[in-house]
């Protein structure tokens, strides 16, 4: 636990000493601001709902950018040798890295809180769906980031890691489309696996435990797989 937090803290600090955190946050804020303005202008509704659905799209692009370096860079620079010979479990390394990315994502989401505050200043938004929507973004973000951690353990090349992360998340995001191709329980299974289906209700103010548990399961499963990949790659040297 202690080591996990140490690794997460170092990783988070390293986001901010490199341009990554600033670049990703800046791009994210510009896009979110643009969409917030457009949606508000067109709909004239004091709601964050439509914006939340749009943010999930940015998440698919931004998530891989946050996670691509996590393990891949350590492998490339050789610092992985230090981490894997320190008295730290492989799982602690993976969870620490994931936490750093998740904290950065949470920070980026926190910066967008200015928009609901704006709505509140000039209108009368329903706070429930806004809160559940943010919870949804945090959970869906966690799932996408955990898939990114898996991709980053697979390679020493950051671009490959980003692409694999993007591919994995996009496939899982759109998995529900398969239910129109394959009918019956197989189709339902793919629908259940879809990251987007489980997100749909959250910005409406509906927090279903099934959805929460789904995202948490994806995170746990991904981090488990990432840990096993890290272990397996020791054998290759």
């Amino acid at each position, binding site marked *: 636990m202690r*080591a996990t937090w*140490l*690794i997460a803290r*170092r990783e988070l*600090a*390293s986001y901010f*000493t*490199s341009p990554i955190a600033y670049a990703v946050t800046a791009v994210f804020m510009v896009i979110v601001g643009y969409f917030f303005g457009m949606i508000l202008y067109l709909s004239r509704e004091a709601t964050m709902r439509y914006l939340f659905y749009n943010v999930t799209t940015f998440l698919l692009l931004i998530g891989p950018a946050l996670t691509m370096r996590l393990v891949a860079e350590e492998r490339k*620079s*050789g*610092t*992985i*040798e*230090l*981490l*894997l*010979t*320190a*008295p*730290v*479990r492989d799982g602690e390394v993976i969870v620490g890295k994931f936490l750093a990315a998740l904290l950065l994502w949470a920070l980026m989401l926190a910066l967008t809180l200015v928009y609901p505050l704006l709505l509140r200043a000039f209108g009368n938004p329903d706070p429930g769906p806004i809160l559940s929507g943010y919870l949804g973004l945090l959970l869906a973000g966690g799932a996408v980031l955990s898939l990114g951690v898996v991709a980053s353990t697979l390679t020493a090349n950051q671009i490959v890691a980003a692409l694999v992360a993007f591919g994995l998340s996009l496939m899982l995001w759109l998995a529900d489309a398969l239910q129109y191709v394959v009918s019956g329980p197989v189709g339902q299974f793919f629908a259940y696996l879809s990251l987007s289906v489980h997100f749909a209700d959250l910005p409406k103010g509906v927090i279903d435990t099934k959805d929460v548990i789904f995202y948490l399961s994806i995170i746990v499963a991904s981090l488990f797989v990432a840990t096993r990949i890290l272990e397996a790659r*020791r*054998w*290759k*040297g």
Partner: protein
Amino acid sequence: MIEVEHLTKYYGAVPAIQDVSLSVNKGEIVGFLGPNSAGKTTTMRILSGYMPPTAGTARVAGYDVMRDSLEVRRRIGYLPETVPLYPEMAVRSYLEYMGALRGVAKPAQAAERAMESCGLADRREMLIGKLSKGYRQRVGLAQAIIHDPEVLILDEPTIGLDPRQIIEVRNLIKGLAGSHTVILSTHILPEVSQVCQRVMIINKGRIVAEDTPERLTGRLRGAQQLHIQVARPAGDARTALEAVPGVLTVAETSPGCFEVESALDNDPRTKIAELIVGRGWGLLELRPVGMSLEEIFLTLTTEDAARAAEEDGPTISIDAAPGEGRRDR
């Protein structure tokens, strides 16, 4: 402190080390000597718990590197071949992080101590990415000793340093002897004789010799070699020297300089001195020449290659010279 038995590691079908056995006692400094790609780094990576062996066992401080990896890792300080540094971190925060990761109770103080003993005090707030190669190597060494480990595994600790820094680092390592067990790899031969109490020469994944630097030099010499220099050699000097009892061969390397090989049990030095003084050649120098570690190293590693070639039969082999070919892993 370190016991290795029949350790073997394959990368795919390529053997990196084969049937390596060695043991290092507590407080000893042992040198691991070998050409590039001999298997030094592989052995050290296994000892540090970075990767598992294909076969065989390795125990550090009584713990198996496979089964009790975490216990082993708690007790070692490891400096890998490529110094593992985060360029975006400052020296001090990097060392504090490494100390904390290794479970040091007071990382700030430990970092301060490590910087002091590695001569980094004046660079403590500098970003590692901006340091010169020598300083980076020192930071690597500082992170290896920060938690005062029982066992230190140093893969080429003096590489990239200037001569003065090399001496400093060697003294630092020598200062660790007694309370720490050190295993270090190098292909710089004088380093081994200066720092290490015991040497293991590894070539093509096998240990080909193991002894103290002094005994290793003695053991390989079936005969004693003398270097003689005289001021006024007469024409028959060579034959006269050859006639001295105990002298096996004489070679005149340059006018007045002779390399004399003699039997170990029949030391001809007094008789040679008497002969030279008696003939009035003007004795300038008479000293025994030890076979240098370089020569031993070359003898062992080339003998080995020659034997291997014989075993393989008369095939044409384009064998890469040491330092070329596959990267040392």
